[in-house]
């Protein structure tokens, strides 16, 4: 079991989509939301993904195809 903390940023047109629910069903990962700020035109959610490393990687890759921005919790690391 591995754990990976991510931050998902939603553009306006994706705010109404149940994206987190979907990846929990499509992949063997447990999603655990810790912090969020979702408004009318923008939103972000910070959550933990728990599961096998390969399932987590697939879930992250899938999130990216769903039109949201996925980053590690640290956000931009390359300085």
């Amino acid at each position, binding site marked *: 079991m*591995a754990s990976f903390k991510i931050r998902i940023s939603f553009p306006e047109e994706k705010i109404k989509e149940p994206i987190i629910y979907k990846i929990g069903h499509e992949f063997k990962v447990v999603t655990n939301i810790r912090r969020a700020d979702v408004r009318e035109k923008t939103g972000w959610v910070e959550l933990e993904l728990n599961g096998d490393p390969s399932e987590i990687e697939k879930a992250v890759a899938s999130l990216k195809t769903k039109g949201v921005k996925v980053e590690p919790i640290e*956000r*931009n690391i390359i300085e």
Partner: protein
Amino acid sequence: MSRKSAVSDILKQKIKGLKCRECGKLYPPVALHVCEFCFGPLEVDYNYDEIRRHISRERIENGPKSLWRYADLLPVEGPPTVGLYAGFTPLIEARNLGAELGLKKLYIKNDTVNHPTLSFKDRVVAIAITRARELGFTAVACASTGNLANSVAAHAAEARLRCYVFIPGDLEAGKILGSLIYAPTVVAVEGNYDDVNRLCSEVAGEYHWAFVNINIRPYYAEGSKTLAFETAEQLGWKAPDHVVVPVASGSLLTKIWKGFNELKMLGLIDRVDMKVSGAQAEGCAPVASAFKEGRDFIRPVKPKTIAKSIAIGNPADGYYALKAVHESKGALETATDEETVEGIKLLARTEGIFAETAGGVTIAVLKKLAQKGIISKEETVVAYVTGNGLKTQEAVINAVDEVVRIDPSLDSFEKTLKLKEK
């Protein structure tokens, strides 16, 4: 200076632990950077009562001529073991540049000459790696394309630690030479910037390495406070009226603000009546645009600027930098690539300091803020120039004059240069 005498009398138990900046939950002072509960960033929690009993201007002034003179306010428990000469860079009274910009008391904090790798990163890395050794790490790492990688690689060589530097796979060879020379393992990741970002977070979670800007970040970031400490001491123990700071992750600006306020809280300076203004490149200005649009949140951007050392599109401390600017009644302003190049040239022409692109952004923004009257001419102003221009020569190579070519004769010399006086 011997290693033992670097700081003669280290305070015991000055660090209480780590504390979440959002929910306040406390943690022991280990290699941890995110709150397990709310995922907020962790910060070092100091025992200020203990520090206050010992610290004084005199104690600091009798310390080494490096950032370690402020060791009482830095997150290490023993004497420094690496980076002993970092910091205490010149604070230059910039009379010529001040005259051009109409500012009477302008100073440049010149970190282009920081030791050993010529950028302010030597401050944060000296502290991060000293702390990493205290925590028992034998390997250090970072994700960086420039200044941070140079500094981590150099300090790891000095500390004889294994070192891993992660970079995007398509980076030009010239950019990584400044790291490779210190013989770290440079890992070029086949993928884009986001892939490297994600991978490094995963690696940091799996391996017992000290990633200076990930799991060691609470300690690393504190090093930036020394820019405030030095400025105050060099001004005769007072805070300036206005500072201009480049903004990348937002950590530097946040910590400079914290540093001045810490000095005031401990009675080392009388007051902090200071505005903190931030400088961003127009092609990567997530914090400045939030400020201008009156937003309280940062909208991530895709960077497109020559100022690569501050091109962070989703800055981890952007929110806190924005807050510090508001608290201090400062401003955030941007510079285009052209203005950045002009800024580099202006600083070089007037003060003889060759800054990298981030310095060009800072000087260009300083100029704008002065022109707009946001900085008034009577204010004592400090602009932070954080990296050396020799590292980003490509930015100005086509923006400088040609050499004057002559034959090896006095006649040719005088005719070509059209000299009249002798």
